């Protein structure tokens, strides 16, 4: 089971969380976004085989969205934070 460090609650089991998708998809500006921008936001994903930034909803905890940087090959969690945080790359 993944152990996810919620920035608000501390380390919690994966079962408390609901996956909420790619954190890299950026919603276009409502006034200026083009059809192509919206298509890319809704449908296209980088889907990397490596580090992936994603949103998890702490649905059985504080009920806030958090951002998780995770290696999708090893399932190792590199860093977590609030959705607006910049996360560590894990290289040290």
């Amino acid at each position, binding site marked *: *089971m*993944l152990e996810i460090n919620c920035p608000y609650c501390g380390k919690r089991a994966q079962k408390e969380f609901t996956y909420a998708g790619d954190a890299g998809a950026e919603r276009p500006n409502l006034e200026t976004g083009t059809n192509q921008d919206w*298509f890319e936001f809704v449908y*296209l*994903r980088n*889907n990397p*085989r490596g580090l992936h930034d994603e949103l998890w909803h702490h649905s059985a905890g504080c009920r806030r969205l958090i951002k998780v940087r995770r290696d*999708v090959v090893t*399932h190792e969690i590199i860093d977590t934070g609030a959705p607006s945080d910049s996360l560590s790359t894990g290289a040290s």
Partner: protein
Amino acid sequence: MQKYSIFSLARNALTSHKNWGEAWRNPDPKQEYDVIIIGAGGHGLATAYYLAKNHGITNVAVLEKGYLGGGNTGRNTTIVRANYLLPENELFYEHSLKLWEGLSQDLNFNVMFSQRGVINLAHTDAQVDAHQRRGNAMILNGADGVWLNKHEVKARAPLLDISDRARFPIKGGLLQPRAGTARHDAVAWGFARGADARGVDIIQNCEVTGIDIENGGVVGVQTSRGAIKAKKIGTAVAGHTGHIAAMAEMRLPIESHVLQAMVSEPVKPCLDTVVTSGATHTYISQSDKGELVMGGDLDLYNSYAQRGNFPRIEEVVASVISMFPAFSRLRLMRTWGGVMDMSMDGSPIITKTDINGFYINGGWCYGGFKATPGSGWVYAHTIANDTPHKLNEGFALNRFEHGYMIDEEGSGATPNAH
């Protein structure tokens, strides 16, 4: 190719089966091919087989990073069915099911296709309506479907709990009698043998590391065994389509997720059909070795790892036991995972692309195995003619941009919800 028959069996019995020839060669890659298929799983090998058989294109290489059939072809729960609502899906999977029915004879290789029927259980009145509507759609599209009340379901799967005390009471089920299971490895081996006999080179331990593109068209691939040229390149790499597409600088409407499957210890025959549940999204059948083969939902988060996590195993087992209380005494013997291409509408993508000579076959979500012969059939047509077969016109990559989604579940652009 040495033809397999009762006579070849008897002849080889005389020499204690020590002189069977190899079923396929193990060639070194040539410098150039007419077509390169990336991925020697069921779909890639079927594509090569039908390129040779239906279209006369035999200067073909199938490149495999590991060993033949070692990816999702060897990891699925072996269910073959064509019980879809939407016409694009139903017509395509029904064509595939028809190919399954003649596959052992066509390949001269026993794929052990067993038409034991697939029952999709309904647990609420709304599901009864939806299943009956889907059954009617199947029949209208030329497939077979039969509605069973709960007592008819019980007659086919006596260990099911059909009482009102069940966690998800069973109201009935949609049966597809011609559906069933097949021996998954044999499908890869049969297509490999048939393709090899027609001149296709199957090159194992040859990982594609780059795709060479010049003037908007492919010219070859870089691999762990050197550069190989080809004017047409098709991917058939299950959960790694996004990874290969990135080599051609494409982003796809796909996320890769891990799906687990598991088997119990082997027991005597107790389930001679396939049971799937509309409430718990669990599917279960019994293998010829006696193991109960089970699967359920994805782990639901992006993953390229061929292994999953314990919470999902627990949920699958709990769901199975809620339907079949007798199975609670069995021990779980083995679990494993495979990487799925989850597309944005839950339907596959079999398509040419904006890059000349580059073709994509992916986005199979939970259901690639049953499509193996049909997928190879239409993909070979698409590659040979540079235009889709009428059965995969709807599975084009540009359907997302233009709003022609084939969303069987109606769950929208959330890949893990399909």
